[in-house]
């Protein structure tokens, strides 16, 4: 048997369903973002971990120039090592059918026994190559798809200067190449870069690596100390050109994936508080009005013997009803979106499967937060009513008192019409309520700005990377360091207009307890194609002495110009130098150290060499140039920057659009929740007054102006505040999205402001018009009969 008071509760909820739904939707957004963020993250982590485990992803990775296989027993004996596997890996040029310029490949040897012990590739189609066949390879599935290749198809590759016809036996995925990037670029490009697995004997023969290896994978025992293993391994590999072992955290694919997961976590933390705060205000506003309307009923309930607590509980239950609706909607949408987004990510990362794992904690936390939000929002409204004595509650409340103030001065100054004065006085009379509307609109705008700005950031990043820092049209990566004569050789290639040599070496940077393996790039004097960008923007020449450090690293490590750091060269002569930091650089993608060419070669104690050529070319002669490059044994890889940029930005735009659409819906929902509720409350309070205007001969449009005009004015006030707040949010998002490899710049364009404004304005106008329809239907006679 439902108690009478609960029956009233249900009817009240049914009566205010539209407003309750509008609040529940805003609340639901906050809950949804929490559930979605953590659900997506949990699912991706679970999937990644399952993938890593099933395919035996290594714990420690190391590279060397050429280490003897005889070293392996010693490595396997190291404390904490469970399994060790040596392999040969080389960059090669590929001559793909239907592709004029050469593609690049990373050739990895498969053990003679067939399957590797660690980093086991997952066979998607076909088989691994026959260990006895020299011309069989398996390739990564995305690369094969980008070229329309299937097992049985062939293509040519240049292995150590020799052109070979290779036949595909299988398409693979690998936990070690979830995120696949070619050398010298931070950008995945499945068409231009692929991984190839080939039997060890064939690779060793092609690269003169019989009895030797240049890559090492280790799995560790559960009780192992990775740092100790890494240190011991470095000692063993040092004589063989070891460039520093590292754990998973520095493995490029893992680190990028981790960066993406951290980004998801960051977004899940930034947005929900905004939605929860707005819904708390909305509950307060709506319940406040509902209670004001029911003041006399409250007096009556108390007069007939209901206790203050019972009456308060009644209204709290009403808010809990809204809370349950919002939390339920948020959970449902969150689970649905988490799956959808996880699938998008899975497709992007080429996960072979997805292990769904809803995060129970996120349901509990978001549910509790959601309910706490509505209760908090309701408390003030409930308190103000239940503390009235029955007699006072039952009497008619005093009419609102208006006073002269700012509005009057403004009204006189601008010769405003009385209907506009009504708007101004309403705002100054209930500044708190106006503030909630302004705040809500600002929040909606800010949410939009902080999501749409990612397009600006991406544009700025690409501009920085492709136009400011890298102005070359083509880069040729060389297999090994070459003397400067190679520059002159390159100039002779067809269609080459300008050539600049570039060299870089792997180093280990140390300061205090911090240590990081990085690339040290040499800047040749007068280089114009690859430029160094100063912290404040603008190309600069690196000082002749000392080290230029990226601002992100400097901030992270707390170092700056004047500090002395330790620089260990991971190439011969393998010495450690103490170098002063003399400049800071800005890099949107990657974190590289810079030094003047002269200073670097002085440290290396050798004549200047280059390992990369940057070119300006005549695109008309591109076909001949490509053909010439393919036939050059010294070339390890080629980048055509314009093509790379186009593909990369297309990919990013596609992914960004999904997110922006989601946030546009969120922004619209906040706006609707706020403006619709404000309009309904206004309508309920001012029905009498607005009906009077109709009686006096004001047309529907003129009367609607009083209501809609006020909301539009508040919306227009809220939007610029939203721009400001959005900038703050964008800063938080930029910080959250920045990873070790990518620093997201904080740039907000007018286009972003315009999009955010448009979404918010359209939602606000639509909400106001919904209420205007009710206003148009107002029955003048019955509205006037009711005494204020």
């Amino acid at each position, binding site marked *: 048997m439902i108690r009478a008071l609960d029956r009233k509760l249900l009817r009240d909820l049914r009566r205010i369903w539209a407003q309750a739904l509008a609040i529940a939707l805003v609340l639901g957004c906050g809950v949804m973002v929490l559930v979605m963020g953590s659900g997506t993250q949990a699912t991706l982590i679970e999937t990644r971990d399952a993938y890593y485990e099933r395919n035996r992803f290594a714990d420690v990775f190391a590279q060397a120039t050429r280490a003897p296989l005889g070293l392996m027993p010693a490595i396997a004996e190291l404390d904490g090592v469970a399994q060790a596997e040596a392999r040969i890996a080389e960059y090669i040029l590929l001559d793909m059918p239907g592709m004029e310029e050469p593609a690049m490949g990373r050739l990895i040897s498969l053990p003679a026994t067939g399957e590797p012990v660690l980093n086991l590739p997952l066979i998607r189609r076909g088989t691994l190559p026959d260990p006895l066949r020299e011309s069989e390879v398996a390739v990564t599935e995305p690369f094969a798809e980008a070229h329309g290749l299937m097992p049985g198809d062939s293509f040519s590759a240049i292995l150590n200067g020799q052109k070979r016809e290779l036949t595909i036996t299988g398409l693979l995925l690998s936990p070690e190449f979830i995120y696949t990037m070619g050398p010298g670029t931070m950008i995945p490009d499945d068409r231009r870069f692929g991984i190839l697995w080939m039997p060890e004997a064939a690779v060793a023969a092609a690269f003169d690596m019989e009895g030797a290896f240049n890559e090492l994978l280790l799995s560790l025992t559960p009780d192992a100390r990775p740092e100790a293993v890494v240190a011991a391994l470095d000692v063993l590999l040092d004589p063989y050109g070891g460039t520093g072992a590292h754990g998973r955290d520095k493995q490029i694919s893992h680190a990028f994936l981790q960066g993406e997961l951290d980004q998801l976590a960051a977004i899940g933390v930034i947005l929900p508080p905004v939605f929860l705060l707005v819904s708390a205000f909305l509950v307060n506003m709506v319940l406040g009005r509902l209670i004001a309307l029911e003041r006399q009923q409250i007096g009556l309930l108390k007069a007939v013997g209901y206790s203050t607590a019972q009456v308060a509980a009644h209204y709290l239950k009403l808010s809990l009803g809204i809370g349950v609706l919002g939390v339920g909607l948020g959970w449902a949408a969150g689970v649905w979106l988490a799956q959808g987004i996880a699938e998008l990510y899975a497709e992007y990362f080429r996960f072979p499967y997805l292990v769904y794992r809803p995060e129970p904690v996120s349901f509990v936390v978001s549910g509790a937060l959601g309910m706490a939000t509505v209760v908090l929002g309701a408390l003030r409204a409930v308190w103000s009513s239940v503390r009235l004595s029955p007699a006072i509650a039952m009497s008619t409340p*005093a009419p609102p008192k*208006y006073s002269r103030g700012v509005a009057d001065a403004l009204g006189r100054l601008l010769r405003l019409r*009385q209907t506009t004065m009504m708007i101004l006085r309403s705002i100054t009379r209930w500044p708190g309520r106006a503030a909630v509307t302004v705040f809500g609109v600002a929040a909606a705008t800010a949410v939009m700005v902080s999501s749409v700005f990612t397009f600006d950031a991406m544009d700025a990043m690409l501009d920085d990377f492709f136009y400011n820092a890298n102005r070359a049209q083509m880069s040729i990566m060389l297999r090994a360091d070459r003397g400067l004569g190679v520059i002159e050789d390159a100039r002779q290639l067809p269609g080459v207009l300008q050539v600049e040599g570039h060299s870089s070496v792997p180093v280990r940077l140390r300061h205090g307890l911090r240590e990081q393996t990085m690339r040290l790039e040499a800047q040749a004097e007068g280089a114009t194609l690859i430029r160094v960008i100063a912290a404040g923007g603008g190309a600069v020449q690196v000082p002749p002495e000392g080290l230029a450090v990226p601002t992100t690293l400097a901030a992270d490590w707390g170092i700056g110009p004047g500090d002395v750091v330790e620089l260990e060269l991971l190439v011969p002569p393998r010495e450690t130098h103490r170098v002063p930091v003399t400049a800071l650089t800005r890099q949107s993608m990657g974190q590289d150290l810079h030094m003047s060419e002269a200073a670097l070669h002085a440290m290396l104690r050798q004549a200047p060499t280059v390992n990369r050529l940057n070119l300006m070319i005549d695109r008309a002669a591109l076909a001949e140039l490509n053909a010439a490059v393919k036939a050059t044994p010294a070339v390890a890889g080629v980048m055509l920057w314009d093509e790379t940029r186009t593909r990369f930005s297309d990919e990013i735009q596609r992914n960004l659009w999904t997110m922006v659409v989601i946030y546009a819906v969120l922004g619209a929902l906040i706006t609707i929740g706020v403006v619709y509720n404000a309009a309904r409350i206004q309508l309920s309070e001012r029905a009498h007054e607005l009906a009077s205007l109709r*009686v*006096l*001969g004001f047309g529907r449009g003129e009367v609607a102006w009083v209501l809609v005009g006020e909301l539009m004015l508040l919306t227009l006030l809220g939007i610029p505040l939203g721009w400001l707040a959005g900038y703050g949010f964008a800063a938080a998002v930029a910080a959250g999205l920045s990873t070790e490899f990518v620093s997201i710049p904080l740039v907000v364009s007018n286009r972003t402001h315009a999009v955010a404004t448009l979404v918010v304005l359209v939602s606000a106008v639509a909400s106001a018009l919904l209420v205007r329809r009710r206003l148009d239907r107002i029955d*003048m006679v019955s509205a*006037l009969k009711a005494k204020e």
Partner: protein
Amino acid sequence: MERTTVFRTEGITRVYGSGPAAVQALRGVDMALHAGEMVVLLGASGSGKSTLLNILGALDSPTEGRVFFHDRDLTRASEAELTAFRRDHIGFIFQFYNLVPSLTARENVALVTEIAKRPMRPEEALERVGLGRRMDHFPAELSGGEQQRVAIARAIAKRPEVLLCDEPTGALDSRTGVTVLEALDEVNRELGTATVIITHNADIQRIAHRVIVLADGRIAETHVNATRLHPSEVSW
């Protein structure tokens, strides 16, 4: 001399609701209102007074029958035409004043003068009802009688042809009520505005030219006062 007829109704009926719950508020009313005339509509609660007044003022429309304003058939007018009709020709005064609480007395009057065709200045309208000194007060700062006089000023400021007053003294004590009636009487005499006053207070009828008594949705009785009393001579 034949007096101009401002309003004329022909057999108007008004039914609210339908089926068994239908309420017949008017059951065929024929009446006329002449220029410069002051008419009191008398009758018990539910007799149909307010319904008739609302129909004359174009706030409501009859279920059957026709309403003419001069020669114009209001029952055929569109929503927008009725709005314009109220704006240009009718002044309303209600029992509960219906002032806009966020506007001062002067602004409440200006509300109407801003949209009227040939209005008087708000100050002039307020001086006419004796509120020249309280113009910048908000409704909440005025007494009931003062608020009703602001409502009268607002109604007359557009120089309407007709004033429709629904229980204008209903919420006021006798002494205050008289001041309101005096204001209405003065407007009627000086501006020649045809005035219809609804009341269930029989004493007030004696200030009118003509009294129409409604009962059960019909006109039960009409009589002309041979001599009109000045409002100050009335009390209740």
